[in-house]
């Protein structure tokens, strides 16, 4: 995948997380998804299903244990998409 694909993933994540969060903070790659955006676990899991469908990949939810920030989520999706 190219750099533009990574940017596409990042933009999609920021847009969707913004829609899911009750917080008014500006979402950046360093934003902590759980502690700063207060997104509950089920909303996050549903977002993962949506990302799977958008990029036609399988993202195991146990891989999320290493994900805290938006950038880490984008890295995970990019890595899985690149390998598919």
């Amino acid at each position, binding site marked *: 995948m190219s750099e533009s694909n990574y940017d596409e993933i990042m933009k999609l994540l920021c847009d969707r997380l913004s829609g899911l969060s009750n917080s008014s903070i500006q979402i950046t790659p360093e934003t902590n998804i759980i502690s700063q955006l207060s997104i509950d676990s089920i*909303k996050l899991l549903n977002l993962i299903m949506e990302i799977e469908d958008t990029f036609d990949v399988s993202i195991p939810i146990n891989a999320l244990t290493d994900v805290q920030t938006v950038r880490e989520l984008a890295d995970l999706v990019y890595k899985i998409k690149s390998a598919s």
Partner: protein
Amino acid sequence: MNLLEKLDASAAARKALLPDGVGAFGIPIEEVYSATEARIGDRRVLLLGTNNYLGLTFAPECIRAAHEAIDKEGTGTTGSRMANGSYFGHRSLEREFADFYQCDSAIVFTTGYQANLGTISGLVGPGDTVLIDGDSHASIYDGCVLSGADIIRFKHNDMVDMEKRLRRLGNRVETTLIIAEGIYSMLGDQAPLTDIVKLKKAYGCILLLDEAHSLGVLGETGQGLVETTGLLKEVDFITGTFSKSLCSIGGFCVSNHPQLEQLRYVSHPYIFTASPSPATIASTRAALELLRKGSHLRKQLWQNCTQLYTRLKEGGYLLGPHPGPVIAAIVDTPRQALLLWQNLLEHNIYVNLILPPAAPEGKSLVRCSVNAAHTPEQIKYVGDTFCKLHSLLCTAS
């Protein structure tokens, strides 16, 4: 944030939803009078927040069996079956479950939670995949996490979505375990087992069905969804619990795969837990006998379920798609659910309050569990009271 501060933050989030003094979770029950009534505070309440589906908690046969087991074998086994041995009761109950499901093997676990934890973590491991329904019970999620397998969710009961995810797995489907539930605990709806079995066969996966809420409830002999669908032989592993229709505590897994026996040597939730007490096993055995012969109890249960479901629907409540022993009123906000729950308690009705994220789709639930021992008059009172309180939902949006 240190460890204790993290718990403080979690407590603050909980209290924001449920102020101190509102004992919706773990409510103190002072006395239990029967399968349908208890005392909470000074109130004699109707119990619709239990999973006592066949109403057998006070069945004389079960109580007598438990008493006799304590007299003969004492109060506990004091350790695991691996180390302390398998009592006659443990082995008998396993034979009886295998016979009930016409399967070759059965394993008894100490809790229903551990039945899923132990079966799943024994069947799959790192490098394997589990494909689970999005509304799966926490014991299924936790079993998957414990296993180290890759966990993929499909949309609740959505077979198009499930097939899409199977297709994406490619040749990994050979080491994929699909998991579904006979009746789902939140909305009381049933898995589309016929379609799941078709996909399981088409992709060559293994299928585990959790009959925790459907055991004793569905089918002529109470086997669960496998019986009403006639698909018993198509499901590879069936798990379930003793703590609902069987009115004790424990869990089981049955299968025709001889490999089930190996779980006794690889499944930590089986190996490193004290085995069920003699009284627990004895009352479960007696209850299983009553369950198998309990078509009259199922008939009464389903009359009660249909009566309450119909009344709540008429009263304007949004419910799950099927009538059944789990009937959940779906409301938009935690505040609406809390107000309804509190008012029901003030009318001497105890039900379950379920708030996000435990409830699906960000909604909140006021959930009733109906049982065969409820009288038509009790069910009428509950239905009428719900309907009387429906206007509260508008005042608390």
